[in-house]
């Protein structure tokens, strides 16, 4: 029986146990004079839990532990000569495991051919459709047979024990159906644990991502001193040629990339903040309900456009347009420039600024507006002197969130910013960003032991720390503001 089959049977048994338990509890409720503590559904679920969970954990544990035990046993069975010859045990074991997939097809005569030396193990296995390396030796075949047999036995026992546990659990859960049994409490406890487990998945994933990036970064910093990375002003990683391991010819100064990122984000914010804020003020203070209900979703569509499409727009339409427009007034703008990427990215983050600011401005209590009107203030005085000061912390939070979005943005800058790592003040020149360089260092044939590749992780980690810091700061400000009015 395959493992999938065991899981499927377990699932079906669980469902059946639920209906059985509920039915039985119902019947008992009707028959018994005593009032039941829990509802029939709770009892049903209680039986399900006892049927499924112990067996489930047993199977999971078995699947983790059993291969280790088998491997240990097979390793010990290898002739001493094999391990003594200096060959790596793990390499031998890899071949043994490959062999074990095919040994069941071998017949008596195949063994004779091998022992007589007529055919090599590799040739015999190939004739059975199993590919193994040329280092497969006859003694490994013995180990493979053992491996195969132990695995099969282990699986048989697993099926047997899982079945016993399942039935035992079911019987135990079934016995628990009684008027005073606190099935509801038990079920709710298990559900709570399930919910906790679900939320832990997200947290653990984040931790896993951070750790994997962190370890690769540490690997990078073994080859390139952190000072050169964080304070170097030249980005010139050269090529990551396969075979030239550890060739730290390149220079990995992050400053030009950070500068490009910051410059483009600044241009983006200079576009997005005024437009977004003014449209938010219009939406929340001036627009009628009809206009608002149409215009706000339209504005938010901007956020739904894939960023690669913005990239096309920048590359094909906006960049050449800026170049030609700049040419008309005698200002030299390259097609891929700070301005191109910054403008298009600014348009992309308008909805982040406007939508959040709109919510925040709308959340300013109506009583403040009326208080200001009641003193004879005009609408514009009210907005400028009462509403905006009250909304300011939240708006700052919105802008910071938009900024962290801009800093992490990739596709627009890959297409529109250029690849030359310059530190320049001229917005018409091309710069590059951290994200662009991560993409270019990780594209193509890679070897994950050269600084040219590993630098991408160090860049990613830096970017992560920066945007995380911005997000935390923004959320802190927004939350502080919320407390003021709720």
């Amino acid at each position, binding site marked *: 029986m395959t493992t999938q089959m065991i899981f499927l049977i377990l699932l079906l048994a669980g469902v059946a146990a639920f209906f059985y338990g509920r039915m039985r509890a119902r019947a008992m409720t009707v028959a018994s004079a005593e009032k039941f503590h829990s509802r029939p559904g709770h009892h049903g679920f209680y039986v399900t839990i006892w049927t499924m969970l112990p067996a489930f954990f047993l199977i999971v544990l078995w699947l983790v532990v059993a291969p280790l035990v088998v491997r240990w046993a097979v390793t010990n069975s290898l002739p001493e000569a094999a391990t003594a010859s200096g060959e790596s045990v793990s390499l031998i074991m890899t071949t043994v495991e490959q062999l074990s997939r095919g040994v069941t097809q071998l017949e008596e005569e195949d063994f004779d051919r091998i022992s007589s030396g007529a055919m090599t193990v590799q040739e015999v296995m190939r004739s059975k459709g199993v590919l193994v390396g040329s280092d497969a030796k006859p003694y490994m075949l013995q180990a493979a047979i053992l491996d195969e047999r132990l695995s099969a036995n282990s699986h048989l026992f697993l099926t047997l024990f899982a079945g016993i546990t399942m039935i035992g659990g079911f019987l135990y859960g079934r016995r628990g159906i009684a008027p005073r049994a606190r099935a509801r409490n038990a079920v709710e406890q298990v559900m709570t644990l399930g919910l906790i487990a679900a939320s832990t998945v997200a947290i653990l994933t984040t931790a896993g991502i951070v750790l994997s990036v962190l370890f690769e970064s540490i690997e990078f910093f073994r080859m390139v001193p952190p000072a050169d990375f964080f304070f170097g002003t030249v980005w010139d990683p050269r090529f990551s040629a396969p075979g030239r391991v550890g060739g730290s010819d390149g220079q990995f100064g992050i400053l030009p990339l950070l500068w490009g990122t910051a410059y483009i984000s600044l241009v983006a914010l200079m576009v997005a903040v005024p437009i977004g804020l003014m449209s938010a003020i219009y939406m929340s203070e001036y627009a009628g309900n009809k206009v608002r209900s149409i215009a706000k979703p339209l504005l938010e569509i901007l956020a739904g456009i894939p960023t690669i499409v913005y990239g096309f727009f920048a590359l094909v339409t906006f960049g050449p347009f800026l170049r030609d427009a700049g040419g008309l007034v005698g200002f030299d703008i390259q097609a891929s420039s700070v301005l191109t990427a910054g403008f298009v990215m600014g348009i992309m983050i308008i909805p982040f600024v406007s939508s959040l600011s709109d919510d925040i401005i709308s959340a300013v209590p109506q009583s403040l507006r009326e208080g200001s009107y*009641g003193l*004879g*203030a005009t609408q514009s005085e009210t907005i400028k002197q009462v509403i905006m000061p009250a909304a300011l912390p939240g708006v700052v939070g919105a802008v910071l969130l938009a900024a962290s979005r801009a800093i992490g943005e990739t596709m627009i800058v890959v297409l529109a910013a250029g690849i030359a790592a310059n530190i320049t003040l001229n917005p018409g020149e091309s710069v590059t960003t951290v994200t662009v360089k991560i993409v270019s260092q990780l594209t193509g044939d890679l070897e994950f032991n050269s600084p040219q590749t590993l630098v991408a992780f160090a860049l990613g980690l830096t970017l992560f720390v920066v945007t995380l810091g911005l997000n935390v700061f923004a959320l802190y400000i927004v939350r502080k503001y919320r407390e003021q009015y709720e």
Partner: protein
Amino acid sequence: MVEISAPVSPVSEGANQADSVKMSARDVCVYYGEKQALFGVNLQIPTNEIMALIGPSGCGKSTFLRCLNRMNDVIPIARITGDIELDGEDIYAPDLDVVELRARVGMVFQKPNPFPKSIFDNIAYGPRIHGFSSNNKTDMEELVATSLQKAGLWEEVKDRLDQPGTGLSGGQQQRLCIARAIAVKPEVILMDEPCSALDPIATAKIEELMDELRSDYTIVIVTHSMQQAARVSQRTAFFHLGVLVEEGDTDKIFTNPDDERTQNYITGRFG
């Protein structure tokens, strides 16, 4: 909008006598969308007196109050018919500037609503937007001080004028809002249940304050508390289901009302 107050104001000052009429409403109806909230209210508000508007919840007294400085304009679905005059001048006239009207008819709200600014700036906000010479610092300080004194808050806050107004207690905040309204030098002050969020001590302070303010201002107060109406007002108007049932001297309304509905309400049979 056209500025029209200049030629009119001499007239209003001439009419400013103790028993004259400050504001008058004729046949005022208010609709919120399809729903009619006020039905043909006729009411005269005498100068330098306190008029109390009483009645059960949802009777339209707050709606009427908000008509007096056109605060209902803020609500998009509200529609008003009829005439309301301030010193004989129609406040719903198309060429009247609503901003100027609200400077003359100030308002204090149910819930204290200090601006998220310092105590000083809360008071100075109104005068500043009305062009009070902000470059003359001592004048502004004096205006802030007198406004706070009139509102009986000066002693409590004089050492911390630069601290946020939102940090004061509820009663202090409400007196700050009254001081804020006074600083604009209005002629009429509308109060929409100003004590409903306050404890009895703060309420007593505000009632005392209203009595002092009466010599300079005309006050209209909406209140749920009949005791409060009886204590502070000279005239009382009773609203029920959007209709002005009865209006008269406070003493008469509370001792010998003409209408049975008024009688029932003040004796606590409904409401």
